[in-house]
């Protein structure tokens, strides 16, 4: 742990993190530019950094981007990222009431505080969970991969059928290359570069950046961000602080909701902010004031979405299961640094893991200081970036980044074709999240399945091994619950509507 502290608190790393946080805040403030895209585009720049610096920079960008989404949400009623949708409900009315600066600072305190709680959850939950994960054998890893894909399919897609289909398609793409058990070269379509498998980061950059850039390009005339003049208020920092911590129940409850949702694979800030907002409104003594400029609404959404940043790393670091699209990109970044996410990481590369956690803590203080000092100026700067320059620049960075991974032109072609496939599939209702998670979890699922099958063959019952071990049974039950949840929710909503009518 001491080594990790020493590694993080050096001048160069802090400067890189500051730049990363500012870059993340700018990216988050750009509507259509998600936190995942920001992280994916910067991964190639971290290759030459040591693992702690590289991960710290990516963590800072992610934290900054989730926070930065609140600027346009509060100032122009347009969420910068899906994690800030709920912030528009009360943040924008506050701006219209001349309290925009107070709303921005309230969001800053809430984001930093919520983020801090999320990282503490990561620190205190990941070590015991990693110990449990060490007991996992191949069948458990197989079911864990199934759970990861089904829950992201049920949460991120409107249609569960399309979500699961996307996840299975991701599994199939992951099988291109050498079989992990069996050793044959498979499905390369005669392309020699594919023998080592499809480069995950190229696919991630293509899936997350290209469709969004094409969408923005197609609506470029509508994508002009309005600049707003934020009225100056006196004693605003004190007011913002009190909005959060005078009655801290709302802040604490929302941060805990965000932390819990973040730990679930597949669920992230986009769900947490709405759940926390609805809970804050439900438990408020003055629920009618929500939606008219109540700072408690901003506190709820911003503390919960930033709490997911740290807690989303729990399944990634302990189980090797990326819990969100941004965590999937970090998974790729870890692989490139030669690190395999999973419980062994805590023993083989403890300094890197703890260093990453400490860096995430530092990032929360950075968004607090930078947010209070220059939050509204960052938004003002963002409004001056024309979409006509942004789109070509992001495409250029995507080309450069995917080439830099292995200095291979085929990775650039894979990136662009993946982007076009993702754009087309999105039109058909298939979201990138399940496909990408399937791509990452495919090898884990296959290795778990084939090794488990061989263990079963040795004991005379090839498939029973998947259904009889206690941890497997628990994972099967929660997988079934993940699949059934949308239907249960739909039935409950129908029943509720029926009662109302």
């Amino acid at each position, binding site marked *: 742990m001491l080594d990790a502290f020493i590694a993080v608190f050096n001048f160069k790393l802090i400067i890189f993190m500051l730049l990363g946080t500012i870059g993340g805040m700018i990216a988050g403030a750009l509507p259509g530019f998600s936190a995942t895209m920001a992280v994916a585009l910067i991964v*190639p*720049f971290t*290759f*030459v950094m040591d693992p702690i610096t590289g991960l710290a920079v990516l963590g800072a960008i992610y934290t900054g981007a989730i926070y930065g989404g609140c600027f346009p949400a509060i100032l122009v009623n347009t969420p910068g990222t899906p994690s800030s949708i709920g912030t528009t409900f009360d943040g924008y009315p506050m701006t219209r009431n001349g309290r925009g600066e107070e709303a921005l600072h309230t969001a800053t305190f809430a984001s930093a505080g919520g983020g801090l709680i999320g990282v503490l959850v990561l620190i205190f939950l990941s070590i015991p969970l990693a110990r449990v994960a060490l007991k996992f054998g191949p069948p458990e890893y197989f079911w864990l991969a199934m759970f990861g894909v089904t829950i992201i399919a049920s949460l991120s897609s409107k*249609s569960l*059928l*399309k979500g*699961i*289909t996307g996840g*299975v*398609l991701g*599994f*199939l793409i992951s*099988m291109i290359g050498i*079989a992990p*058990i*069996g050793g*044959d070269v*498979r*499905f390369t*379509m005669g392309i020699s570069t594919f023998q080592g498998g499809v480069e995950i980061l190229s696919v991630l950059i293509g899936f997350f950046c290209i469709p969004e850039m*094409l*969408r923005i*390009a*197609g*609506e*470029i*005339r*509508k994508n002009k961000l309005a600049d707003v003049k934020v009225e100056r208020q006196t004693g605003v920092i004190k007011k913002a602080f009190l909005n959060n911590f005078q009655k801290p129940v709302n802040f604490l409850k929302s941060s805990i909701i965000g932390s819990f949702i973040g730990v679930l694979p597949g669920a992230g800030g986009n769900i947490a902010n709405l759940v926390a907002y609805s809970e804050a409104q439900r438990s408020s003594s003055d629920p009618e004031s929500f939606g008219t400029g109540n700072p408690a609404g901003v506190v709820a959404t911003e503390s919960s979405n930033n709490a997911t940043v740290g807690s989303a790393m729990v399944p990634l670091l302990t189980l090797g299961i990326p819990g969100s699209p941004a965590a999937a990109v970090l998974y790729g970044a870890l692989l490139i640094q030669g690190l395999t996410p999973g419980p062994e990481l805590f023993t083989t590369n403890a300094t890197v893991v703890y260093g990453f956690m400490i860096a995430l803590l530092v990032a929360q203080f950075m968004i607090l200081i930078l947010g209070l000092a220059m939050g509204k100026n960052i938004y003002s700067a963002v409004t001056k970036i*024309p*979409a*006509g*320059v942004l*789109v*070509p*620049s992001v*495409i*250029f*960075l995507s*080309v*450069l980044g995917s*080439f*830099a991974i292995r*200095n291979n*032109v085929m990775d*650039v*072609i894979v*990136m*662009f074709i993946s982007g*076009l496939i993702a754009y087309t*599939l999105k*039109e*058909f*209702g*298939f979201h990138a999240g399940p496909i990408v998670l399937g791509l990452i979890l495919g090898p884990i*699922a*296959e290795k778990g*399945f*084939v090794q488990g*099958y061989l263990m079963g063959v040795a004991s005379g019952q090839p498939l029973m091994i998947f259904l009889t071990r206690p941890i497997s049974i628990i994972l099967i039950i929660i997988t079934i619950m993940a699949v059934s949840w949308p239907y249960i929710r739909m039935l409950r909503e129908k029943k509720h509507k029926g009662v109302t009518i």
Partner: protein
Amino acid sequence: MKRNTDLYGGLFMIFISLLFWSKLSKLNEYSKLFPIIVIIVLSILGLALIIKSFVKASRSELFVVDDKKSVILIVLVTFAWVFLFKKIGFAVTSFVALTSLLCILSDKRNIKAYFKCAIISAVEIVILYMIFSNILYVPFPKGLLF
């Protein structure tokens, strides 16, 4: 016109399943054990989507954008860029492609605006080329030109 997205999605999945199935024959038992299961599951899901498309189809308009021409041009320019930069050279293709993308999305259509696009493109390429070659040590293909 609203299209049946379930039908298109289902057909795409069946096509992918058949494509991968056709490559299974030469693999050994353990290399094809999991792919067989995944291909079968994907085909079933594809079929389920096709059946759903006849029973309760999801319909939506496809590729609805205000400026279709720009999107098509961007795709074509980027396509040429990624396929040609090894042969012609990274710097030259990137300059031409990036300038073209900036011009396609530019508000104004006059010589001054195009010149501005070329300047932005040159500055971006020089900065990123320097970062990638001198700090990240990425050797870009020089090709026929540069």
